């Protein structure tokens, strides 16, 4: 069996080497000659949305909110003590994060890459729990939850998700609540660990100036070979196409109102190479409609309704997708109304060809710039892996974005009936 695949991308002068381990786990290696920093990530397809699941057709299990994030914290504590200390002695910066659908462990370093890599592989594959350490972790995570409760942008974002989704667990805060994490215990943690930290449900990405043969050698020596046959099934509630609430407002200490508008995406593909061109289509459309060269932004800026803090983004994962735009504004409702009438107008008049050609050109420069950063390459590889996409496919498929596609995406994604306004302002 050919376990090594090599893909070269001449246009951007990059390549990726992929090694498939006997467990089914893939190791992506992206060489970056001349860089001193080395970066490795180890991810499992387990995030905050995986709160209900079935293993090997047994009874379905429902776990408390915040368990994926809790496990992320716990893995750093092993029999021998804190994993962080070990990395630290080797001169590495370890970290981990939990998103909606993934938990990622990573480190960066300049020296001792393979010792660090060994450490990463070993601690992620081994869970060590005591009742005492679980209780202690609840204290730390409770502080983290409180910290986020005071963060207006975090509140703004989760309120937006609450407005967009009726049932989907994407709207639940990633860390859970002080109440939900108090219900977490040893059994729940083991159950989740054994269900989701199976190598066939995981991926490794390495970026830097390294020897691929040696990566394979260390991976083989440190990855568990035996892999029990298992079937994991995530259970998601049925999510209607409609939105939940058109507007959510919260009061917090902020200087001027901050807002986010969200469009719920329900029509476009999310998985596989084919979904990429739609994703890039939305990004280009956002640039055309809301970007700094747009009529919209300039008009809003001149009327002092928007400023430099204005940003837009598109989030797409295997299980959900939505686009956002927002910033500071003295009148977010007026901005929302302007967006709605703008979308209606554009659907009638269509996007101009000139705007499309110019923006598509600029978009290429922007995505090429991402290749400067080791972290960006690793995190983008990771982000799209569970959608069955290789990050470099974006650069190959870029040429396939057509004017017609952009107009289709405009009709399909930007639906005036699926727009939510989230707003945070002062009490007064």
């Amino acid at each position: 069996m050919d376990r090594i695949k090599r893909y070269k991308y001449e246009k951007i002068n990059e390549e990726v080497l992929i090694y498939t381990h006997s467990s089914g786990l893939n190791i992506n290696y992206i060489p970056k000659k001349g860089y001193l920093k080395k970066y490795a990530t180890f991810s499992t397809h387990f995030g905050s949305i995986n709160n209900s699941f079935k293993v090997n057709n047994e009874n379905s299990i429902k776990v408390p909110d915040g368990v994926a994030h809790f496990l992320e914290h716990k893995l750093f504590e092993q029999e021998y003590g804190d994993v962080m200390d070990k990395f630290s002695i080797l001169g590495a910066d370890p970290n981990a994060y939990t998103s909606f659908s993934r938990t990622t462990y990573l480190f960066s370093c300049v020296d001792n890459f393979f010792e660090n890599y060994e450490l990463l592989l070993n601690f992620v594959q081994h869970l060590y729990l005591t009742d005492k350490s679980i209780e202690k972790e609840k204290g730390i995570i409770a502080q983290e939850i409180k910290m986020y409760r005071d963060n207006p942008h975090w509140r703004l974002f989760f309120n937006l998700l609450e407005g967009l989704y009726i049932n989907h667990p994407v709207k639940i805060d990633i860390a859970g609540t002080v109440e939900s994490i108090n219900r977490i215990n040893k059994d729940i943690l083991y159950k989740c660990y054994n269900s989701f930290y199976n190598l066939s449900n995981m991926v490794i990405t390495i970026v830097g100036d390294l020897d691929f043969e040696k990566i394979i050698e260390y991976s083989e020596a440190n990855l568990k070979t035996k892999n029990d046959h298992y079937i994991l099934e995530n259970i998601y509630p049925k999510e209607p196409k409609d939105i939940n609430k058109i507007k959510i407002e919260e009061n917090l200490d902020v200087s001027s109102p901050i807002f986010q508008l969200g469009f719920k995406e329900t029509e476009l593909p999310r998985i596989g190479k084919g979904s990429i061109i739609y994703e890039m289509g939305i990004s280009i459309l956002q640039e055309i409609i809301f970007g700094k060269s747009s009529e919209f932004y300039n008009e809003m800026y001149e009327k002092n309704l928007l400023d430099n803090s204005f940003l837009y983004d598109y989030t797409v994962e295997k299980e959900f997708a939505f686009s956002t735009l927002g910033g500071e504004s003295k009148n977010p409702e007026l901005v929302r109304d302007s967006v709605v009438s703008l979308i209606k107008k554009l659907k009638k008049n269509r996007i101009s060809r000139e705007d499309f050609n110019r923006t598509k050109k600029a978009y290429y420069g922007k995505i090429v710039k991402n290749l400067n950063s080791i972290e960006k390459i690793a995190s983008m590889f990771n982000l799209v892996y569970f959608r069955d996409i290789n990050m470099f496919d974006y650069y190959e498929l870029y040429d396939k974005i057509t004017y017609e596609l952009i107009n289709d995406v405009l009709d399909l994604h930007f639906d005036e009936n699926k727009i939510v306004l989230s707003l945070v302002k002062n009490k007064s």
Partner: protein
Amino acid sequence: MIQQFKENKDKVFDENGIELYTVRTDKFKTGSINIFFVDNLNKSNVTKNVLVSNLLKRGSNNLKSIKEINLKLEELYGAYFECSIIKKGEWQIMQFYIDYINTTYLNKNENIFDEILEFLFDIILNPYTKNSIFREDFFSGEKENIKRRIDSRINDKLGYSMDRCIEEMCKDEPYSIYEYGIKEDLDKLSEKDVFDYYKNYFIKQLPIKVFLSGEFDELNINKLILKLKNIKRDKIIKLNKPINSINIKKVREINEYFDVNQGKLAMGFRMDTDYFNDDYKSFVLYNSILGGGIHSKLFTNVREKESLAYYTGSRIDKYKSLQLITSGIDIDKKEKAYILIMKQIENMKNGEISDYEYNAAIKSIETSYNYLKDTQYSLIDFYLSQVLLNNDKKIDEIVNEIKTTKKEDIKKAAQKIYLDTIYFLKSK
């Protein structure tokens, strides 16, 4: 072929208070030009400097709006342009930054360098004026933006608590001035005041440091030099060295109240040394061991052992010889946190530094310095600091000095750090 990265800058031009440095590398997919205007941080200029840079990026006589500026940038394959305000010690720096994709990655081997130069100098030297002063509508709009920017400081409670601690601590020193300006001064300034200031002072009298980075040839350098030679200059102002005074009669305590779930404790210390002193490196290590990362005493004892805080750490400012310790804690645990933090400092004074703490701190500093070489902008920022501090040490030399610092030296440094101000942000 990628060459070994040449970790150095070359000074290629020095006339009329304008210096040009080149940093040659083919590691990145982009080139960049940075133009820094440096002023002494002072109350009478701070707001004018911010207004000037905000107004310059609003438009030139050729590109008359944000829209036209961005249409141009899009044509240049999404070149990224920004003016930022940076505070380094008691200097205020106005940065004009542009990065652009390397010719190699363009389809037709187009050369965009000349257009990039034209663009950048057009923005800086040819502002959009009406009756020979800044436009009234741009002026009033930017005043609003700056006001909002100043007010929005409270949205980030951690950053705010740090800023406030420093403001109180350095009340009578330029260091306390907020680099985005003084709100009350905005209304006192007219379009004419600020335009005269721009014409007679900003362009003519401020020292200018320019960095060209990426792949370029002699022709590119000469074109840039020609542009710099054409700037009409006057007598250049002298940059002051930061004042470093230690005169603490009594530790100041300040409490401020907000509607928050988590308290922020910030403690400001003064260090009896400066960047030019031989013992400065001992302070760098002191800071790293006390609160500079996961190996530090604060992280281990305040966060991990006592689970008192989600984050805690310390940092020093190399331009001002200050140390700031910050943490996010439960409001009713302030005393406990304070005692625990002071205990760590006491231990440092007694020379209680384990081999693990010492070695991990050295490794961590070495790694951070090496990382600088992998990011185009971090490297420029480092060189700018070296130029401003008139220091010619290379990254590797600095790292070697750190490595030869002994525990005994760190203990000595610990005796020369004094608590000045305790700031606590809590709930109403």
